[in-house]
């Protein structure tokens, strides 16, 4: 074994790896290798996140093949070294389980194929996996041929709206002007979404290569990656990758002796959600306040500093090299209808496996959630709805679980494909509260320029809040529908146009929950605190008195051999007693 230099220890070291403590795990491995005198046999590789949350993931590759460990803590490292690296056996305690296998086996990983597999700081590893081969191939063809290939592939923008990428490229190419730009929209702002971050951290060259190809096709000589400053690791990896690509001649002047030159810059955004909107994003790059401007003119005609500008999202650009290498036909063979290829989702909420999931378009929601997602997190919890598309998207109920994941089918439901946020909710989630949560978000993130978004969302938020307080009326429902439609139709940009969707879809699919809040002044999911009364169920109460000391507001009275009682006037509904009660006697 010791002769083989190819033995690798892969440690997931993206942002989620870092937060789980991958640094300590890595240094423990280094220590173990050193102490055991086997450091020359093993190569430790800090790879990007693979997309599944299992604390630190460690994969060990040697002549016996590949073994995955999950939930690896620094304390486990000596055990792994002992049994696996030296002993030739397995460290069973941390062996990845069935859920892990299930999660990855049920995906089609194309965009994510390098994430968690290669060291993003080493360009050779990228090149070994056909990196920059697509750029070479593209430079051997004419820009028009490249555009044709992208058009034929049917690739649509992965940022949300789903505009045909090839058309955008063609518009930019055909726009008049010699100075043009390519911009990568890496301002991933949906709560809970991190597809772009993982790609940038784990496989930055795929985006750089996509941009260079886009630049060549569109006739642009310069590109900007607009990345939020909250992604420091992604920015670090990008900077490193850009300098390596420049060194290897994949960026800069006369790339691969083709005569094509392309420079790449990173622009850090300050974290305004609206800057993901393309015109606001361009304003931000120019140093102005990130506020959208009406289109037309579209950026492809008049973009950055008034020059034609091609804007694509990270995932869109990461798809490009695969299309160029494998052909449009290969790409369009995946997917359904007018939605081709795969889509990455950030699966979150009450599912067993949360993380990044890449599936072919046309997969049903059910197959995704109960496939790689592994179903509901807890056996007894029941699926209630799934929010797709983040704050711009909609909330779909169980009877729409067989909806195919493609642009048209999702739009028909009132949700959108969006950039890939997917939050699964069980019966413990109150849909009115969910609607309020997303409104809180969009109210806070509205740029303030146009009236419907700035004021309309605020008024809607106030009304939804009243409903959660038990002060809702029938006219509030009418108001929400009416105002929601006005905002949807009249807001200036995509943020405003889609912001009412969470309310409109919950009204459409979970009308009964609104009705319960208004007619019965109750919250069926026991979430809206103002509608709850904390009471002791005397059939379940065992008179143990454990609830008494945890109550911070002295609302509980209890004496030995008596049922506990809750004083409603004093209760602040903090739930401390519910958590404490071993018999679930407080409701």
């Amino acid at each position, binding site marked *: 074994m010791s002769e083989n230099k190819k033995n690798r220890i892969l440690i997931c070291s993206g942002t989620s790896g870092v937060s789980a403590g991958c640094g300590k795990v890595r240094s423990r491995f280094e220590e173990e290798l050193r102490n055991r005198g086997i450091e020359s046999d093993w190569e430790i590789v800090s790879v990007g996140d693979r997309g599944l949350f299992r604390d630190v993931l460690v994969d060990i590759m040697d002549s016996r093949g590949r073994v995955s460990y999950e939930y690896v803590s620094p304390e486990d490292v000596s055990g792994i070294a002992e049994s696996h690296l030296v002993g030739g056996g397995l460290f069973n305690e941390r062996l990845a389980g069935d859920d892990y296998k299930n999660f990855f086996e049920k995906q089609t990983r194309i965009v994510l194929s390098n994430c968690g597999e290669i060291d993003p700081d080493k360009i050779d590893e990228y090149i070994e996996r056909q990196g920059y081969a697509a750029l070479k191939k593209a430079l051997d063809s004419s820009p028009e041929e490249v555009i044709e290939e992208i058009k034929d592939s049917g690739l649509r923008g992965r940022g949300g709206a789903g505009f045909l990428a090839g058309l955008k490229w063609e518009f930019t190419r055909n726009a008049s002007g010699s100075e043009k730009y390519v911009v990568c929209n890496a301002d991933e702002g949906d709560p809970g979404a991190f597809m772009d971050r993982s790609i940038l951290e784990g496989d930055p060259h795929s985006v750089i290569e996509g941009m260079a190809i886009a630049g060549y096709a569109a006739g642009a000589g310069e590109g900007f990656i607009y990345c939020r400053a909250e992604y420091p690791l992604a920015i670090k990896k990008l900077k490193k990758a850009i300098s390596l690509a420049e060194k290897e001649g994949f960026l800069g002047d006369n790339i691969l002796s083709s005569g094509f030159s392309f420079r790449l810059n990173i622009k850090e955004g300050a974290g305004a959600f*609206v800057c993901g909107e393309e015109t606001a994003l361009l304003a931000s790059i120019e140093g102005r306040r990130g506020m959208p401007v009406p289109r037309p003119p579209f950026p492809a005609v008049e973009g950055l500093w008034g020059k034609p500008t091609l804007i694509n999202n990270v995932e869109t650009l990461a798809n490009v090299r695969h299309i160029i290498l494998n052909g449009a036909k290969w790409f369009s063979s995946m997917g359904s209808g007018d939605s081709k290829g795969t889509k990455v989702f950030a699966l979150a909420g009450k599912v067993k496996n949360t993380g990044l999931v890449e599936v072919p378009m046309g997969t049903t929601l059910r197959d995704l959630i109960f496939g790689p997602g592994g179903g509901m997190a807890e056996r007894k919890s029941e699926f209630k709805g799934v929010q797709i598309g983040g704050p711009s998207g909609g909330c779909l109920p169980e009877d729409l679980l067989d909806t195919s994941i493609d642009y048209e089918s999702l739009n028909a439901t009132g949700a959108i494909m969006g950039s890939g946020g997917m939050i699964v909710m069980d019966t413990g989630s109150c849909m009115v509260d969910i609607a309020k949560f997303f409104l809180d978000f969009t109210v806070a993130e509205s740029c303030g320029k146009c009236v419907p978004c700035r*004021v309309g969302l605020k008024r809607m938020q106030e009304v939804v809040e009243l409903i959660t307080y038990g002060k809702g009326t029938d006219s509030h429902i009418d108001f929400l529908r009416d105002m929601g439609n006005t905002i949807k139709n009249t807001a200036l940009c995509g943020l405003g146009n889609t912001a009412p969707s969470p309310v409109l879809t919950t009204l459409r699919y979970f009308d009964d929950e609104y009705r319960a809040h208004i007619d019965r002044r109750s919250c069926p999911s026991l979430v809206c605190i103002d509608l709850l009364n904390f009471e002791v169920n005397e059939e379940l109460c065992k008179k143990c008195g454990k609830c008494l000391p945890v109550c911070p507001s002295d609302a509980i009275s209890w004496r030995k051999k008596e049922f506990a009682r809750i004083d409603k006037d004093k209760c602040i509904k903090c739930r401390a007693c519910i958590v404490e009660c071993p018999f679930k006697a407080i409701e």
Partner: protein
Amino acid sequence: MINLKIDGKEIKAHPSATVLEAALQAGIYIPNLCYHPDIPPAGACRLCIVSIKGGRGVVTSCTVKVREGMEVTTNNDEIRKMRENILWLTLSELPEDIDETSQLYKVARWTGIKNILENYSRKPKNIPVKTEDPLFIRDMNRCILCGRCVRMCRDIRKTGVLGFSGRGIDTTVETAYGMPLADSACKFCEACVEVCPSGALEDKRKPDPSCREKTLVPCTNNCPAKIDAARYVKLIALGKYREALEVVRETVPFPEVLGHVCDHPCEEECRRNDINEAIAIRSLKRFAAEKGSDRWRDKIKILPDTGKKIAVVGAGPAGLTAAWFLNRLGHSVTVFEAGSSPGGMMRTGIPAYRLPRDVLDREIKDIVSFGVKIKTGIKIENLEELFKEGFSAVFLATGASETMTMGIEGEDDTRVLQGIGVLGDISSKKDTGLKGKVAVVGGGNVAIDVARSALRSGAEKAVILYRRTREEMPALEEEVEDALKEGVEIRFLTAPVKIASSGENLKIECIKMKLGKPDSGGRRRPVPIEGSEYVFEADRLAMAIGQKPSVPGGCASLKNDWGGIEVDGGTMKSSMEGVFAGGDAVSGPASVIKAIRDGRKAASSIDRYLGGSGDIDQKLARDETEMPCLGREEGFAFRARAEMPLLDGKKRTASFCAVEKGLPEKEALEEAGRCLSCALRLGISEAPEPPVKEEDSG
């Protein structure tokens, strides 16, 4: 041209027009608030939504360009409903009391104010109103964030002072870091105020809608003669001195005289006073007169001879101004002057250190060179004779040179002199008898002039006795300042009550005064303090407590109760057919510029009387197309007023040389650059307002 259909109506529009512009032009009103014809569109208020056949949903008509064959619907149930919702949202953030003259109010009325949400009450934002800046207030509680001010400031004026601060519902229009306007490089052009549709930005001094110029361009509009100060200051700033002089010349024949001695009401009202100090408009006028070329002479057009003869009595500023304009209109004008040289008070009342005689002579010579005849040494007493000699009209501009007396004991002493007489004597180089310690009674410009002249004529000391305080002094502030610098002493709240002679000296008994209640003119009346009498000794005493109009003996019937000639203020017509009057002879002692105003009015009125149009003005300088861009300049608000270089204090009293040296070019350019360009605001287009609904107009 593009052909399109709006609400079924076939219209043609310029290819660069937006749908909104095309509709407005065709008389189809679409409600709008963030649109303004002078500013790039924003699409912020969303009121101007329309639907376009073949398009999805609605679009804002202010941002969509017209296309051939386009079919636009501006109003249907769906659009109306959405508009009402948007309007309700806009109003839901505002106080109830919206200014009824504002565009917002009118648009709201037109669109229809409906209550969309039951039991909703507007929530006051309680943002502190910014009142501490000069000239205008900012009340963000009333702001609808249409962004017109921001775009005006950033994109048109390019001053970049106002921007958006905060986001979402908390967005406000602010300066960077909320700093005061002056610290934010504001140029106070107030274009932002002009385009604000909601009353969030408002002038501190609200203009009268019937005459906005009066408040908004106060320099020009407070000039009695309406010299376009705003225009010539701007021209000086552009280095166009020749054109600047021509602008002054369009209105008055005494640019340089005024540049030396005008009491500049323009500066008193200058809006820059509210920021730091007024523009030195008088000094700039003098600069233009000195630096501007003589091209205006070639441009003056003397109209063909009308065959009419006009007599002007008195060659002061009123008489000569009337003569100048009447002569230009083709009349034959003769000016009769009782004194030995023309100029009136400009010569006999204003000392040479304030108005060098060569300046006066030159401008009078200009008047004569275009054909005005001046006959000096002729005192007109009888107007009948003038008419008999063939004059068709007479303009009486005989001034006010009769000194008023105090009526106190000992006033007839030969050592008690008349102030205005002393100035006249100095001017004609006669001996004044001023020596030793000279006391002057009065608080006006004449008193100051006499005191300062006394120091230049051999007096050792000059003391002004004035019965009120400095605040009430009618003399120009800068004159008082100069007098004090030259060593003139002023005793305030002091009045002589008796003059006794004691050998060489005059013993002037004075009484101390205190200020009582304001009189009809608003000045506080002096009240003697009993028992405070004291004696003040002086070699000479000059009376400068005012003059009375000098009216020819034969015109006694034209006089009113207090001795002035009674005229109609609009036409300057007296009660005698063909006789007009103006200047000090009508008003009592006033200013050169007011005399010029009267001369202009009289010229116009006389021309009409003789059958002309009364239009006396001739355009000399071509109108400039003013650039709406001002650019950014840090510290603009703090630029100090140019200081007039003065003759050294000690040298001053040694002669009658001009005290003010005139602004050097660099300072003049800088000074003109301090101008707020108030007139620019008047050039801003009006925002389109909704047509008045029938129910409203009825």
